């Protein structure tokens, strides 16, 4: 089973209380990983409002987690 590091930013990090955590990925896709983390930490934002990135580049919610990868959930951005 794949073990991945989840990265949390901005309001997600505040809600989780940590910037990252290692989790066992189970057998779902990246969306399933977010749905599980959302339930556990009480994230307000639904996955439709977020993007997902793997190892520093954007990925698709339907991608399978790769063992040892870094998965970042990207809330709506507000730079500039």
């Amino acid at each position, binding site marked *: 089973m794949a073990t991945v590091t989840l990265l949390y930013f*901005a309001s997600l990090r505040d809600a989780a209380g940590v910037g990252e955590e290692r989790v066992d990925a189970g057998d779902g896709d990246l969306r399933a990983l977010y749905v599980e983390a959302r339930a556990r930490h009480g994230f307000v934002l639904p996955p439709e409002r977020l993007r997902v990135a793997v190892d520093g580049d954007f990925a698709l919610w339907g991608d399978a987690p790769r063992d040892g990868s870094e998965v970042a959930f990207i809330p709506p*951005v*507000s730079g*500039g």
Partner: protein
Amino acid sequence: MSGHVPAFAIANTEFDVAPLRAALIDDRAGAFASFEGWIRDHNDGRAVDGLRYEAYRALAETEGARIVAEAIARHGALGACCVHRIGELAIGDLAVWVGASAAHRDAAFATCRTIIDEVKARVPIWKHEHYVDGDASWLHLEP
């Protein structure tokens, strides 16, 4: 554009814009447009006394460089560059700088405008505003 200055960078302290502009100088350029985002004292009707920017740095740099390259190609500019601050900022501080040089002003303005628009829409940077009334919040803008 000079190889010494990356097309997009994240800065965690104040940065000097003079070398960024200098790297865009080109004998073929007749036009240079730049944009600066400054921390202003209000947002959406609330008085702001400062803010913090946080980035997912690895992805921000990749996506920012992609945005600059796309804008140069799309508008036919000669060069362009963008630097975005992270960390704590006060009113009046420079949050983001964009510069673009081109043969003519249409391309310089369009490149500069496209870069700031796309950076605001796509680069993983988040703004945490502190309000004068003591409250604070992350801005997660509606798409």
